[in-house]
């Protein structure tokens, strides 16, 4: 399922319109969104998910504008991993991950054995099975982050919108989550994620969108976008560039 934007201007309060986005995110692609704090990465992701209206232009999923989608039908195709979550209300890991099946169940339906199996597979994939009966509020930040990824995995989306999916994760689980998202793309889903780690972007993303604080933006295949001069301007930070195992590596000077 293709996610497209047509002259999209996201509504970041107090900022000029900047450049309108004309993106075409196809199945099999992994897009990384890079930019400094406050550049509008999260706002863009929420706009792509139809959770907030754009200032201008449209977002199209499967050639249909988002406002025309029924909320439930949209949730069957598109999952969001949020950067900020409300884990205050008590629920176990299993209960939390199972709500990923909500868009697929009618009000009177209970989760079936198949739904339960999906949730368990997601827990297994994220090393959460031993924690299945723990309250989410008692978990560490990294464990909660994995619960959020497992929830989205249980939702079986065609399009993933992930806001800093590697937040709080240790190195092993950073790689595990990036591998999972990459595998999702190879299985024919589209993935868009906001990232702060240039090295993860260089290794796992095939397309990049650079968002500048003033609303300027540029996008394209990763190889064309990872230009040190452009990245230094993006972050207002000097960079050292190296190469390890054929992948470019960026270190702040």
């Amino acid at each position: 399922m293709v996610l497209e934007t047509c002259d999209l201007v996201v509504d970041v309060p107090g900022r000029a319109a900047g450049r309108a986005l004309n993106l075409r995110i196809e199945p099999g692609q992994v897009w990384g969104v890079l930019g400094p704090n406050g550049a509008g990465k999260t706002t863009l992701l929420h706009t792509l998910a139809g959770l907030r209206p754009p200032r201008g232009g449209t977002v199209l999923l499967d050639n249909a504008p988002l406002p025309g989608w029924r909320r439930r039908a949209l949730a069957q195709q598109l999952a969001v991993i949020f950067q900020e979550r409300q884990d205050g209300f008590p629920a176990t890991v299993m209960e939390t991950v199972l709500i990923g099946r909500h868009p697929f169940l009618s009000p009177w339906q209970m989760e079936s054995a198949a739904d339960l199996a999906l949730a368990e597979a997601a827990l297994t994939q994220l090393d959460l099975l031993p924690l299945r009966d723990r309250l989410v509020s008692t978990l560490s930040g990294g464990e909660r982050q994995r619960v959020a990824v497992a929830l989205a995995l249980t939702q079986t989306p065609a399009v993933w919108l992930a806001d800093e999916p590697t937040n709080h994760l240790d190195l092993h689980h950073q790689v595990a989550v990036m591998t999972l998202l990459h595998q999702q793309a190879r299985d024919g889903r589209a993935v868009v994620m906001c990232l702060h780690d240039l090295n993860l972007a260089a290794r796992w993303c095939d397309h990049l969108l650079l968002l500048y604080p003033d609303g300027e933006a540029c996008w394209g295949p990763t190889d064309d976008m990872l230009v040190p001069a452009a990245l230094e301007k993006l972050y207002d930070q000097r960079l050292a560039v190296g190469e390890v195992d054929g992948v470019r590596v960026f270190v702040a000077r």
Partner: protein
Amino acid sequence: MPGADAGLRHSLTWLVLILASLLALALAVAIGSETVQPMQVFAVLRGEGEPLHRLLLLELRAPRALAAFATGGLLAVAGALMQVLLRNPLADPYVLGLSGGAAVGALAAMLSGLGTALISGSAFAGALLSTLLVFGLAHGTGSWTPTRLLLTGVVVAAGWGAVITLMLALSPAERLPGMLYWLMGDMSYARSPWPPVLTLVLACLLLLPAGRVLNVLARGPLQAAALGVAVRPLEWGIYILASLLTAVAVTTAGSVGFVGLVVPHMLRLVLGNDQRIILPAAALAGGILLTLADTLARTVLAPEQLPVGVITALLGVPTFLYLLYRSRM
């Protein structure tokens, strides 16, 4: 949660709750100034038995027991709903100032020397007024968030509290006991059990298919929206429903405290946090608690009757503190 052993546990839960409900109601009709033996209760249920017992059970105790059961159920369900709405397990049905509005209405009617029917009507009007006031003010010009709703409710409740104190200070001494009983919650104001019973049954039917969507909402509005929930209409619906349930309960029995706070919380500790289980379980457990509390209130210092709110608070405060102390939240 589904699964074979979870299913068995839930069947057991329902069995225990339903048996306990029947037992609580049976105790409430059997115990009192004149204790009726179990065999005599059965006789009356079969349409036989002594005329005195018939009068006592069917005309006096049964309606009061039913009213207490339904009121307890309403408060517990309303509490569970408010807790999901505000994403705060420590919210209760009165947290948004609804009981204050009802109390001002009831006390005003009492001060004017109106009859019981008008006191109830006035309490209901006060509760609705408070609901609309909080809802309108929280809506305001900005966005509608649970935090804003909570703050508005707490401030409005403080305002009602001041008005109540003022009315008590200005009241003639002979009216004070009745007013204080009303403020603490008292089943003897319940005239007919049917308004709370019917409200409770309708609310449960309405909420049965809504359990899972409430589970999703408890994860936060953005996550809920991403899972296909129309968040704003749902939040308004919960608020209005919880307010109506509380208004009917307050109108029936005055402001009985702690049922709406303690019952859902205890159930969560035992049954987990699936609203599909918690909401109907709260209806039964709240009913059991208030029925038993009212039976105690009638009998501990008989022939004196205590306000049932005192009993629920005396039971509720230590239980709640204990649970809070033990819980991992």
